[in-house]
Protein backbone atom coordinates (compact mmCIF):
# COMPACT_ATOMS: atom_id res chain seq x y z
CA UNK A 1 0.00 0.00 0.00
CA UNK A 2 1.05 3.52 -0.73
CA UNK A 3 1.41 5.33 2.59
CA UNK A 4 1.18 8.75 0.95
CA UNK A 5 -2.32 8.20 -0.42
CA UNK A 6 -5.31 9.04 1.78
CA UNK A 7 -7.15 6.16 3.43
CA UNK A 8 -10.29 6.85 1.40
CA UNK A 9 -10.46 9.08 -1.65
CA UNK A 10 -13.36 9.77 -4.00
CA UNK A 11 -12.62 11.71 -7.19
CA UNK A 12 -15.69 13.04 -9.06
CA UNK A 13 -17.62 9.87 -8.40
CA UNK A 14 -21.05 9.40 -9.95
CA UNK A 15 -23.41 6.47 -9.86
CA UNK A 16 -26.25 5.91 -12.28
CA UNK A 17 -28.84 3.15 -12.33
CA UNK A 18 -30.26 3.23 -15.84
CA UNK A 19 -31.17 6.84 -16.54
CA UNK A 20 -31.44 7.72 -12.85
CA UNK A 21 -28.40 9.39 -11.29
CA UNK A 22 -28.08 8.50 -7.61
CA UNK A 23 -24.73 10.16 -6.91
CA UNK A 24 -23.63 13.36 -8.66
CA UNK A 25 -19.92 14.00 -8.98
CA UNK A 26 -18.81 13.59 -5.36
CA UNK A 27 -15.21 14.21 -4.27
CA UNK A 28 -13.75 14.00 -0.80
CA UNK A 29 -11.11 12.13 1.15
CA UNK A 30 -10.62 10.69 4.61
CA UNK A 31 -7.16 10.60 6.14
CA UNK A 32 -5.60 8.16 8.56
CA UNK A 33 -6.57 8.80 12.18
CA UNK A 34 -9.65 10.69 11.12
CA UNK A 35 -13.35 10.04 11.84
CA UNK A 36 -15.60 11.56 9.22
CA UNK A 37 -19.37 11.70 9.57
CA UNK A 38 -21.53 11.29 6.55
CA UNK A 39 -24.68 13.22 7.19
CA UNK A 40 -27.84 13.35 5.13
CA UNK A 41 -31.55 12.62 5.17
CA UNK A 42 -32.78 9.13 4.35
CA UNK A 43 -32.37 8.37 0.66
CA UNK A 44 -29.67 11.00 0.15
CA UNK A 45 -27.18 8.50 -1.27
CA UNK A 46 -25.20 7.68 1.87
CA UNK A 47 -25.60 3.93 1.57
CA UNK A 48 -24.82 3.91 -2.16
CA UNK A 49 -21.62 5.89 -1.51
CA UNK A 50 -20.65 3.52 1.32
CA UNK A 51 -21.26 0.54 -0.96
CA UNK A 52 -19.01 2.01 -3.65
CA UNK A 53 -16.20 2.54 -1.15
CA UNK A 54 -16.70 -0.97 0.24
CA UNK A 55 -16.62 -2.44 -3.28
CA UNK A 56 -20.14 -3.88 -3.25
CA UNK A 57 -21.02 -1.75 -6.28
CA UNK A 58 -18.80 0.15 -8.68
CA UNK A 59 -18.94 3.82 -9.61
CA UNK A 60 -20.38 4.63 -13.04
CA UNK A 61 -17.72 7.33 -13.48
CA UNK A 62 -14.94 8.77 -11.36
CA UNK A 63 -12.49 6.94 -9.14
CA UNK A 64 -12.78 5.45 -5.66
CA UNK A 65 -9.50 4.51 -3.98
CA UNK A 66 -8.89 2.96 -0.58
CA UNK A 67 -5.30 3.25 0.66
CA UNK A 68 -4.31 3.87 -2.94
CA UNK A 69 -6.06 0.76 -4.31
CA UNK A 70 -8.51 1.46 -7.10
CA UNK A 71 -11.82 -0.13 -6.11
CA UNK A 72 -12.67 -0.81 -9.75
CA UNK A 73 -9.64 -2.98 -10.42
CA UNK A 74 -7.89 -3.81 -7.12
CA UNK A 75 -10.90 -4.40 -4.91
CA UNK A 76 -9.57 -7.72 -3.61
CA UNK A 77 -6.41 -6.11 -2.17
CA UNK A 78 -8.46 -3.22 -0.80
CA UNK A 79 -11.00 -5.58 0.79
CA UNK A 80 -8.24 -6.94 3.05
CA UNK A 81 -7.90 -3.57 4.77
CA UNK A 82 -11.58 -2.55 4.83
CA UNK A 83 -13.98 -3.35 7.65
CA UNK A 84 -17.54 -2.71 6.52
CA UNK A 85 -20.77 -2.77 8.52
CA UNK A 86 -23.78 -2.37 6.24
CA UNK A 87 -26.93 -0.75 7.57
CA UNK A 88 -28.46 -4.15 8.27
CA UNK A 89 -25.73 -6.33 9.83
CA UNK A 90 -24.93 -9.17 7.40
CA UNK A 91 -25.40 -12.16 9.71
CA UNK A 92 -26.13 -15.84 9.15
CA UNK A 93 -28.97 -16.63 11.51
CA UNK A 94 -28.34 -20.37 11.78
CA UNK A 95 -24.68 -19.99 12.76
CA UNK A 96 -23.53 -19.28 16.31
CA UNK A 97 -21.55 -16.10 16.92
CA UNK A 98 -18.17 -17.83 17.16
CA UNK A 99 -18.65 -19.89 13.98
CA UNK A 100 -19.77 -16.79 12.13
CA UNK A 101 -16.80 -14.72 13.26
CA UNK A 102 -14.40 -17.56 12.47
CA UNK A 103 -15.83 -17.75 8.94
CA UNK A 104 -15.30 -14.03 8.38
CA UNK A 105 -11.75 -14.20 9.79
CA UNK A 106 -10.87 -17.07 7.44
CA UNK A 107 -12.45 -15.36 4.45
CA UNK A 108 -10.47 -12.22 5.27
CA UNK A 109 -7.30 -14.26 5.08
CA UNK A 110 -6.28 -13.93 8.74
CA UNK A 111 -3.46 -16.50 9.18
CA UNK A 112 -4.81 -19.73 10.74
CA UNK A 113 -2.65 -19.48 13.90
CA UNK A 114 -3.66 -15.85 14.45
CA UNK A 115 -7.42 -16.47 14.31
CA UNK A 116 -8.08 -17.37 17.99
CA UNK A 117 -6.31 -14.22 19.24
CA UNK A 118 -8.10 -12.05 16.72
CA UNK A 119 -11.47 -13.54 17.71
CA UNK A 120 -10.74 -12.85 21.40
CA UNK A 121 -9.78 -9.28 20.57
CA UNK A 122 -13.00 -8.37 18.73
CA UNK A 123 -15.21 -10.31 21.16
CA UNK A 124 -13.74 -8.28 24.02
CA UNK A 125 -13.92 -4.99 22.11
CA UNK A 126 -17.61 -5.49 21.30
CA UNK A 127 -18.48 -7.17 24.63
CA UNK A 128 -19.82 -10.36 23.10
CA UNK A 129 -18.44 -12.78 25.70
CA UNK A 130 -21.92 -13.67 26.97
CA UNK A 131 -23.31 -14.75 23.60
CA UNK A 132 -20.42 -16.35 21.68
CA UNK A 133 -22.03 -19.81 21.73
CA UNK A 134 -25.53 -18.63 20.86
CA UNK A 135 -27.12 -18.91 17.45
CA UNK A 136 -27.42 -15.50 15.87
CA UNK A 137 -31.21 -15.69 15.36
CA UNK A 138 -31.61 -15.76 19.14
CA UNK A 139 -29.78 -12.45 19.68
CA UNK A 140 -31.36 -9.12 20.52
CA UNK A 141 -31.04 -6.25 18.09
CA UNK A 142 -28.27 -4.62 20.12
CA UNK A 143 -26.19 -7.80 20.09
CA UNK A 144 -26.80 -8.32 16.36
CA UNK A 145 -25.49 -4.83 15.70
CA UNK A 146 -22.40 -5.54 17.80
CA UNK A 147 -21.71 -8.85 16.06
CA UNK A 148 -21.86 -6.85 12.81
CA UNK A 149 -19.27 -4.45 14.19
CA UNK A 150 -17.08 -7.28 15.54
CA UNK A 151 -17.06 -8.87 12.11
CA UNK A 152 -15.76 -5.63 10.59
CA UNK A 153 -12.95 -5.32 13.15
CA UNK A 154 -11.55 -8.78 12.33
CA UNK A 155 -8.22 -8.82 10.54
CA UNK A 156 -7.27 -5.39 11.91
CA UNK A 157 -8.58 -3.28 9.02
CA UNK A 158 -7.13 0.16 8.32
CA UNK A 159 -10.39 1.62 7.12
CA UNK A 160 -13.74 1.23 8.84
CA UNK A 161 -17.00 1.96 7.02
CA UNK A 162 -20.07 2.11 9.22
CA UNK A 163 -23.53 2.60 7.81
CA UNK A 164 -25.76 3.90 10.62
CA UNK A 165 -23.81 2.05 13.35
CA UNK A 166 -25.99 3.13 16.27
CA UNK A 167 -29.43 2.73 14.68
CA UNK A 168 -31.73 0.75 16.94
CA UNK A 169 -29.44 0.65 19.98
CA UNK A 170 -30.37 1.76 23.48
CA UNK A 171 -28.50 4.72 25.03
CA UNK A 172 -26.03 2.53 26.93
CA UNK A 173 -25.18 0.52 23.85
CA UNK A 174 -24.83 3.69 21.76
CA UNK A 175 -22.29 4.96 24.28
CA UNK A 176 -20.30 1.72 24.10
CA UNK A 177 -20.38 1.62 20.31
CA UNK A 178 -19.14 5.20 20.13
CA UNK A 179 -16.27 4.30 22.45
CA UNK A 180 -15.25 1.44 20.16
CA UNK A 181 -15.41 3.72 17.12
CA UNK A 182 -13.50 6.51 18.85
CA UNK A 183 -10.68 4.27 20.01
CA UNK A 184 -10.46 2.67 16.58
CA UNK A 185 -10.44 6.08 14.89
CA UNK A 186 -7.35 7.21 16.73
CA UNK A 187 -5.07 5.27 14.42
CA UNK A 188 -7.27 4.33 11.51
CA UNK A 189 -9.72 5.99 9.16
CA UNK A 190 -13.42 5.85 9.88
CA UNK A 191 -16.31 6.94 7.69
CA UNK A 192 -19.66 6.64 9.40
CA UNK A 193 -23.03 7.58 8.01
CA UNK A 194 -25.79 8.79 10.23
CA UNK A 195 -28.81 11.03 10.32
CA UNK A 196 -28.37 11.68 14.04
CA UNK A 197 -26.77 15.10 14.40
CA UNK A 198 -25.37 14.96 17.96
CA UNK A 199 -23.50 11.80 17.01
CA UNK A 200 -21.53 13.77 14.47
CA UNK A 201 -20.56 16.53 16.89
CA UNK A 202 -19.57 13.95 19.51
CA UNK A 203 -17.20 11.73 17.58
CA UNK A 204 -16.39 13.16 14.16
CA UNK A 205 -13.56 15.49 13.25
CA UNK A 206 -15.20 16.37 9.96
CA UNK A 207 -18.70 16.20 8.55
CA UNK A 208 -19.76 15.68 4.95
CA UNK A 209 -23.31 16.80 4.24
CA UNK A 210 -25.02 15.01 1.38
CA UNK A 211 -28.49 15.43 -0.07
CA UNK A 212 -30.03 14.03 -3.24
CA UNK A 213 -26.68 12.63 -4.31
CA UNK A 214 -24.90 16.00 -4.11
CA UNK A 215 -22.10 16.69 -1.65
CA UNK A 216 -23.13 20.04 -0.17
CA UNK A 217 -20.36 20.75 2.32
CA UNK A 218 -17.46 19.11 4.11
CA UNK A 219 -15.84 20.72 7.13
CA UNK A 220 -15.37 20.29 10.89
CA UNK A 221 -18.61 20.61 12.91
CA UNK A 222 -17.29 23.92 14.33
CA UNK A 223 -16.28 25.15 10.90
CA UNK A 224 -19.73 24.47 9.53
CA UNK A 225 -21.30 26.38 12.40
CA UNK A 226 -18.92 29.29 11.96
CA UNK A 227 -19.54 29.44 8.24
CA UNK A 228 -23.21 29.85 8.82
CA UNK A 229 -22.68 32.42 11.58
CA UNK A 230 -21.37 34.80 8.93
CA UNK A 231 -24.93 35.16 7.78
CA UNK A 232 -26.26 35.23 11.29
CA UNK A 233 -29.51 36.91 12.10
CA UNK A 234 -31.12 38.88 14.92
CA UNK A 235 -34.89 38.95 15.17
CA UNK A 236 -36.92 41.60 16.95
CA UNK A 237 -40.50 42.42 17.84
CA UNK A 238 -41.06 46.16 17.92
CA UNK A 239 -44.06 48.51 18.04
CA UNK A 240 -43.39 51.44 15.72
CA UNK A 241 -43.18 52.78 12.19
CA UNK A 242 -41.59 50.44 9.69
CA UNK A 243 -39.77 52.88 7.41
CA UNK A 244 -38.06 54.85 10.13
CA UNK A 245 -37.08 51.66 11.90
CA UNK A 246 -35.51 50.23 8.77
CA UNK A 247 -33.44 53.36 8.21
CA UNK A 248 -32.16 53.39 11.78
CA UNK A 249 -31.28 49.71 11.78
CA UNK A 250 -29.34 49.91 8.54
CA UNK A 251 -27.16 52.58 10.13
CA UNK A 252 -26.05 50.20 12.87
CA UNK A 253 -22.55 48.88 12.11
CA UNK A 254 -22.66 45.17 11.17
CA UNK A 255 -26.28 45.07 9.97
CA UNK A 256 -26.40 44.06 6.32
CA UNK A 257 -30.08 43.72 5.53
CA UNK A 258 -33.40 44.24 7.22
CA UNK A 259 -36.75 42.67 6.48
CA UNK A 260 -39.86 43.90 8.25
CA UNK A 261 -43.25 42.22 8.43
CA UNK A 262 -46.31 43.63 10.08
CA UNK A 263 -48.41 41.34 12.19
CA UNK A 264 -51.88 40.80 10.73
CA UNK A 265 -54.56 42.33 12.95
CA UNK A 266 -52.01 44.21 15.06
CA UNK A 267 -50.80 46.99 12.80
CA UNK A 268 -48.35 48.47 15.22
CA UNK A 269 -46.40 45.28 16.01
CA UNK A 270 -43.55 44.62 13.59
CA UNK A 271 -41.50 41.50 13.22
CA UNK A 272 -37.99 42.38 12.09
CA UNK A 273 -35.22 40.13 10.77
CA UNK A 274 -31.75 41.64 10.57
CA UNK A 275 -29.02 39.85 8.64
CA UNK A 276 -25.93 40.69 10.66
CA UNK A 277 -22.25 39.91 10.66
CA UNK A 278 -20.86 37.62 13.32
CA UNK A 279 -19.69 40.28 15.75
CA UNK A 280 -19.72 40.28 19.50
CA UNK A 281 -22.24 42.70 21.01
CA UNK A 282 -24.19 43.39 17.85
CA UNK A 283 -27.49 42.59 19.52
CA UNK A 284 -26.69 45.13 22.26
CA UNK A 285 -26.06 47.88 19.68
CA UNK A 286 -29.33 47.06 17.91
CA UNK A 287 -31.16 47.06 21.23
CA UNK A 288 -29.80 50.53 22.13
CA UNK A 289 -30.87 52.07 18.82
CA UNK A 290 -34.35 50.53 18.88
CA UNK A 291 -35.15 50.98 22.57
CA UNK A 292 -34.32 54.71 22.41
CA UNK A 293 -37.27 55.47 20.05
CA UNK A 294 -39.67 52.52 20.02
CA UNK A 295 -41.07 49.79 22.24
CA UNK A 296 -38.86 46.71 22.01
CA UNK A 297 -40.75 43.56 23.03
CA UNK A 298 -38.34 40.85 22.11
CA UNK A 299 -34.81 40.52 20.75
CA UNK A 300 -33.17 37.26 19.89
CA UNK A 301 -29.86 36.34 18.37
CA UNK A 302 -30.29 33.19 16.26
CA UNK A 303 -27.42 30.90 17.27
CA UNK A 304 -26.93 28.40 14.45
CA UNK A 305 -26.91 24.85 15.72
CA UNK A 306 -25.55 22.10 13.56
CA UNK A 307 -29.18 21.28 12.96
CA UNK A 308 -29.78 24.69 11.39
CA UNK A 309 -26.61 24.36 9.37
CA UNK A 310 -27.75 21.01 8.11
CA UNK A 311 -31.24 22.20 7.28
CA UNK A 312 -29.81 25.23 5.53
CA UNK A 313 -27.56 23.11 3.32
CA UNK A 314 -30.20 20.51 2.64
CA UNK A 315 -32.76 23.24 1.94
CA UNK A 316 -30.36 24.85 -0.54
CA UNK A 317 -29.83 21.53 -2.23
CA UNK A 318 -33.55 21.11 -2.71
CA UNK A 319 -33.78 24.69 -3.98
CA UNK A 320 -31.07 24.00 -6.57
CA UNK A 321 -32.97 20.95 -7.66
CA UNK A 322 -36.20 22.85 -8.21
CA UNK A 323 -34.26 25.51 -10.11
CA UNK A 324 -32.79 22.84 -12.37
CA UNK A 325 -36.22 21.37 -12.79
CA UNK A 326 -37.83 24.60 -13.93
CA UNK A 327 -35.03 25.55 -16.27
Amino acid at each position, binding site marked *: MNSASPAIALESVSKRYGSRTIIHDISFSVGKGEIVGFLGPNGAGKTTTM*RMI*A*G*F*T*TATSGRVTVAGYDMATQN*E*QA*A*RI*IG*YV*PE*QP*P*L*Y*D*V*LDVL*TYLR*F*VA*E*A*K*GVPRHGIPADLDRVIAACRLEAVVRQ*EIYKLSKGYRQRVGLA*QALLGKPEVLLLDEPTAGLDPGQIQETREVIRSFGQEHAVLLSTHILPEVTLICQRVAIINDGHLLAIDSPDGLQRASEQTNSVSLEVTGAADALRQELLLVAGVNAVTIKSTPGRNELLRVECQVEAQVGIEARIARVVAGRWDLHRLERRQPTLENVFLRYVGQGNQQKTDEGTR
Partner: protein
Amino acid sequence: MNGVRAIFIKEIITYFRSPIAYFVIAVFLLGTGYFFIYNIFLTGIGTMDETFRNMAILLLTLIPVMTMRLFSGEYSGRTMELLMTLPLQPWQIVIGKYLGAVTMLCLMTLATGINLIPLYLYGNPETSTILSGYIGFLLLGMACIAIGQFFSALTQNQIVAALITVPVLLGFWFIGHLQAFQASPALRGLFGYLSFSLHFGDFIRGLVRTEALTFYVVVSAIALTLNTSYLQWRR
Protein backbone atom coordinates in the same frame (compact mmCIF):
# COMPACT_ATOMS: atom_id res chain seq x y z
CA MET B 1 -7.76 -21.32 -2.00
CA ASN B 2 -8.39 -20.13 1.58
CA GLY B 3 -11.42 -18.20 0.40
CA VAL B 4 -12.95 -21.29 -1.23
CA ARG B 5 -12.25 -23.26 1.93
CA ALA B 6 -13.90 -20.66 4.18
CA ILE B 7 -17.05 -20.59 2.03
CA PHE B 8 -17.08 -24.39 1.78
CA ILE B 9 -16.92 -24.88 5.57
CA LYS B 10 -19.59 -22.24 6.13
CA GLU B 11 -21.84 -24.00 3.62
CA ILE B 12 -21.40 -27.43 5.19
CA ILE B 13 -22.16 -26.08 8.69
CA THR B 14 -25.20 -24.23 7.32
CA TYR B 15 -26.55 -27.44 5.72
CA PHE B 16 -26.38 -29.31 8.99
CA ARG B 17 -27.98 -26.50 10.97
CA SER B 18 -30.99 -26.04 8.73
CA PRO B 19 -33.96 -28.40 8.52
CA ILE B 20 -34.04 -28.47 4.70
CA ALA B 21 -30.90 -30.61 4.41
CA TYR B 22 -32.31 -33.23 6.77
CA PHE B 23 -35.60 -33.17 4.89
CA VAL B 24 -33.89 -33.65 1.53
CA ILE B 25 -31.70 -36.48 2.81
CA ALA B 26 -34.64 -38.21 4.51
CA VAL B 27 -36.87 -38.04 1.43
CA PHE B 28 -34.03 -39.17 -0.79
CA LEU B 29 -33.16 -42.19 1.37
CA LEU B 30 -36.80 -43.20 1.84
CA GLY B 31 -37.34 -42.88 -1.89
CA THR B 32 -34.26 -44.83 -2.95
CA GLY B 33 -35.02 -47.51 -0.36
CA TYR B 34 -38.50 -47.92 -1.76
CA PHE B 35 -37.33 -48.03 -5.39
CA PHE B 36 -34.66 -50.56 -4.49
CA ILE B 37 -37.06 -52.89 -2.73
CA TYR B 38 -39.70 -52.52 -5.41
CA ASN B 39 -37.36 -53.03 -8.36
CA ILE B 40 -35.27 -55.81 -6.98
CA PHE B 41 -37.43 -57.85 -4.67
CA LEU B 42 -40.69 -57.56 -6.58
CA THR B 43 -39.24 -58.13 -10.04
CA GLY B 44 -36.53 -60.48 -8.87
CA ILE B 45 -33.97 -59.01 -11.27
CA GLY B 46 -30.67 -58.50 -9.50
CA THR B 47 -29.49 -55.30 -11.21
CA MET B 48 -29.61 -51.66 -10.16
CA ASP B 49 -30.64 -50.51 -13.66
CA GLU B 50 -34.22 -49.50 -12.96
CA THR B 51 -33.40 -48.29 -9.43
CA PHE B 52 -30.82 -45.85 -10.81
CA ARG B 53 -33.38 -44.44 -13.26
CA ASN B 54 -35.88 -43.83 -10.47
CA MET B 55 -33.19 -42.37 -8.21
CA ALA B 56 -32.23 -39.92 -10.96
CA ILE B 57 -35.77 -38.58 -11.32
CA LEU B 58 -36.07 -38.24 -7.55
CA LEU B 59 -32.76 -36.39 -7.60
CA LEU B 60 -34.02 -33.94 -10.25
CA THR B 61 -36.86 -32.89 -7.95
CA LEU B 62 -34.73 -32.72 -4.78
CA ILE B 63 -31.68 -30.83 -6.11
CA PRO B 64 -33.67 -27.59 -6.58
CA VAL B 65 -34.74 -27.75 -2.94
CA MET B 66 -31.09 -28.06 -1.98
CA THR B 67 -29.74 -25.35 -4.29
CA MET B 68 -32.54 -22.78 -4.07
CA ARG B 69 -31.12 -21.05 -1.01
CA LEU B 70 -27.49 -20.94 -2.19
CA PHE B 71 -27.60 -17.37 -3.49
CA SER B 72 -31.25 -16.37 -2.98
CA GLY B 73 -30.74 -16.84 0.74
CA GLU B 74 -27.67 -14.60 0.67
CA TYR B 75 -29.60 -11.86 -1.11
CA SER B 76 -32.67 -11.97 1.11
CA GLY B 77 -30.56 -12.29 4.29
CA ARG B 78 -28.51 -9.26 3.15
CA THR B 79 -25.34 -11.32 3.56
CA MET B 80 -24.38 -10.94 -0.10
CA GLU B 81 -23.10 -7.50 0.86
CA LEU B 82 -20.65 -9.21 3.23
CA LEU B 83 -19.54 -11.87 0.73
CA MET B 84 -18.94 -9.33 -2.04
CA THR B 85 -16.95 -6.99 0.21
CA LEU B 86 -14.74 -9.69 1.75
CA PRO B 87 -11.43 -10.28 -0.03
CA LEU B 88 -13.05 -12.99 -2.16
CA GLN B 89 -13.36 -13.22 -5.92
CA PRO B 90 -16.79 -14.20 -7.27
CA TRP B 91 -15.39 -17.49 -8.57
CA GLN B 92 -14.25 -18.41 -5.07
CA ILE B 93 -17.76 -17.89 -3.73
CA VAL B 94 -19.26 -19.91 -6.60
CA ILE B 95 -16.81 -22.81 -6.26
CA GLY B 96 -17.00 -22.87 -2.45
CA LYS B 97 -20.78 -23.13 -2.55
CA TYR B 98 -20.69 -25.66 -5.37
CA LEU B 99 -18.26 -27.92 -3.53
CA GLY B 100 -20.43 -27.69 -0.42
CA ALA B 101 -23.52 -28.83 -2.33
CA VAL B 102 -21.56 -31.57 -4.13
CA THR B 103 -20.32 -32.84 -0.77
CA MET B 104 -23.92 -33.12 0.40
CA LEU B 105 -24.75 -35.01 -2.79
CA CYS B 106 -21.84 -37.40 -2.16
CA LEU B 107 -23.00 -38.02 1.42
CA MET B 108 -26.55 -38.72 0.24
CA THR B 109 -25.29 -41.06 -2.45
CA LEU B 110 -22.95 -42.82 -0.05
CA ALA B 111 -25.84 -43.46 2.33
CA THR B 112 -27.74 -45.35 -0.39
CA GLY B 113 -24.92 -47.92 -0.20
CA ILE B 114 -26.95 -49.55 2.57
CA ASN B 115 -29.26 -50.91 -0.13
CA LEU B 116 -26.38 -52.80 -1.66
CA ILE B 117 -25.82 -54.97 1.41
CA PRO B 118 -28.80 -57.30 0.80
CA LEU B 119 -28.03 -57.26 -2.92
CA TYR B 120 -24.56 -58.65 -2.28
CA LEU B 121 -25.78 -61.00 0.46
CA TYR B 122 -28.48 -62.68 -1.58
CA GLY B 123 -27.51 -62.00 -5.16
CA ASN B 124 -24.55 -61.87 -7.48
CA PRO B 125 -24.50 -58.32 -8.86
CA GLU B 126 -22.00 -56.96 -11.31
CA THR B 127 -19.83 -54.56 -9.29
CA SER B 128 -18.39 -52.63 -12.25
CA THR B 129 -21.88 -51.83 -13.57
CA ILE B 130 -23.00 -50.60 -10.17
CA LEU B 131 -19.87 -48.46 -9.82
CA SER B 132 -20.30 -46.88 -13.24
CA GLY B 133 -23.96 -46.25 -12.39
CA TYR B 134 -22.91 -44.39 -9.26
CA ILE B 135 -20.33 -42.37 -11.21
CA GLY B 136 -23.04 -41.38 -13.66
CA PHE B 137 -25.41 -40.55 -10.83
CA LEU B 138 -22.85 -38.22 -9.20
CA LEU B 139 -22.01 -36.54 -12.51
CA LEU B 140 -25.70 -36.01 -13.22
CA GLY B 141 -26.19 -34.56 -9.74
CA MET B 142 -23.19 -32.25 -10.16
CA ALA B 143 -24.59 -30.85 -13.40
CA CYS B 144 -28.00 -30.34 -11.76
CA ILE B 145 -26.44 -28.56 -8.77
CA ALA B 146 -24.51 -26.20 -11.03
CA ILE B 147 -27.72 -25.34 -12.90
CA GLY B 148 -29.74 -24.91 -9.70
CA GLN B 149 -27.03 -22.74 -8.16
CA PHE B 150 -27.00 -20.50 -11.23
CA PHE B 151 -30.77 -19.96 -11.10
CA SER B 152 -30.52 -19.27 -7.39
CA ALA B 153 -28.18 -16.37 -8.19
CA LEU B 154 -30.80 -14.76 -10.43
CA THR B 155 -33.49 -14.13 -7.82
CA GLN B 156 -33.71 -13.28 -4.16
CA ASN B 157 -36.78 -15.47 -3.78
CA GLN B 158 -35.86 -19.07 -2.96
CA ILE B 159 -39.21 -20.43 -4.14
CA VAL B 160 -38.82 -18.73 -7.51
CA ALA B 161 -35.30 -20.19 -7.81
CA ALA B 162 -36.67 -23.70 -7.19
CA LEU B 163 -39.64 -23.16 -9.50
CA ILE B 164 -37.32 -22.23 -12.38
CA THR B 165 -34.84 -25.02 -11.69
CA VAL B 166 -37.33 -27.93 -11.57
CA PRO B 167 -38.74 -27.50 -15.10
CA VAL B 168 -35.29 -26.79 -16.56
CA LEU B 169 -33.86 -29.98 -15.05
CA LEU B 170 -36.88 -32.05 -16.06
CA GLY B 171 -36.61 -30.49 -19.53
CA PHE B 172 -33.00 -31.64 -19.85
CA TRP B 173 -34.02 -35.09 -18.65
CA PHE B 174 -36.92 -35.61 -21.07
CA ILE B 175 -35.61 -33.66 -24.07
CA GLY B 176 -34.47 -36.95 -25.62
CA HIS B 177 -38.15 -37.85 -26.20
CA LEU B 178 -38.32 -35.10 -28.84
CA GLN B 179 -36.01 -37.21 -31.03
CA ALA B 180 -38.99 -39.34 -32.03
CA PHE B 181 -40.76 -36.39 -33.65
CA GLN B 182 -37.81 -35.13 -35.69
CA ALA B 183 -37.19 -35.96 -39.31
CA SER B 184 -33.95 -34.02 -39.50
CA PRO B 185 -30.95 -36.02 -38.28
CA ALA B 186 -29.26 -32.84 -37.04
CA LEU B 187 -32.10 -32.08 -34.65
CA ARG B 188 -32.32 -35.70 -33.56
CA GLY B 189 -28.63 -35.59 -32.78
CA LEU B 190 -28.96 -32.33 -30.91
CA PHE B 191 -31.85 -33.51 -28.75
CA GLY B 192 -30.07 -36.74 -28.04
CA TYR B 193 -26.89 -34.94 -27.14
CA LEU B 194 -28.65 -32.55 -24.74
CA SER B 195 -30.53 -35.34 -22.98
CA PHE B 196 -29.51 -35.96 -19.40
CA SER B 197 -31.22 -39.34 -19.44
CA LEU B 198 -29.59 -40.71 -22.60
CA HIS B 199 -26.11 -39.98 -21.25
CA PHE B 200 -27.10 -41.39 -17.89
CA GLY B 201 -28.28 -44.55 -19.70
CA ASP B 202 -24.70 -45.23 -20.79
CA PHE B 203 -23.48 -45.18 -17.20
CA ILE B 204 -26.15 -47.49 -15.78
CA ARG B 205 -25.45 -50.03 -18.49
CA GLY B 206 -21.88 -50.05 -17.24
CA LEU B 207 -20.32 -47.82 -19.89
CA VAL B 208 -18.19 -44.93 -18.67
CA ARG B 209 -17.96 -43.13 -22.02
CA THR B 210 -15.77 -40.06 -22.41
CA GLU B 211 -18.52 -38.36 -24.40
CA ALA B 212 -21.09 -38.76 -21.59
CA LEU B 213 -18.57 -37.81 -18.90
CA THR B 214 -17.48 -34.72 -20.84
CA PHE B 215 -21.12 -33.76 -21.39
CA TYR B 216 -21.91 -33.51 -17.68
CA VAL B 217 -18.63 -31.75 -16.89
CA VAL B 218 -19.19 -29.22 -19.67
CA VAL B 219 -22.78 -28.52 -18.53
CA SER B 220 -21.50 -27.92 -14.97
CA ALA B 221 -18.68 -25.71 -16.18
CA ILE B 222 -21.01 -23.60 -18.33
CA ALA B 223 -23.48 -23.09 -15.46
CA LEU B 224 -20.70 -22.21 -12.98
CA THR B 225 -19.13 -19.77 -15.44
CA LEU B 226 -22.47 -18.07 -16.04
CA ASN B 227 -22.94 -17.93 -12.28
CA THR B 228 -19.55 -16.25 -11.78
CA SER B 229 -20.02 -13.80 -14.64
CA TYR B 230 -23.43 -12.85 -13.33
CA LEU B 231 -22.02 -12.01 -9.89
CA GLN B 232 -19.25 -9.99 -11.51
CA TRP B 233 -21.71 -8.12 -13.72
CA ARG B 234 -23.99 -7.41 -10.79
CA ARG B 235 -21.27 -5.55 -8.89
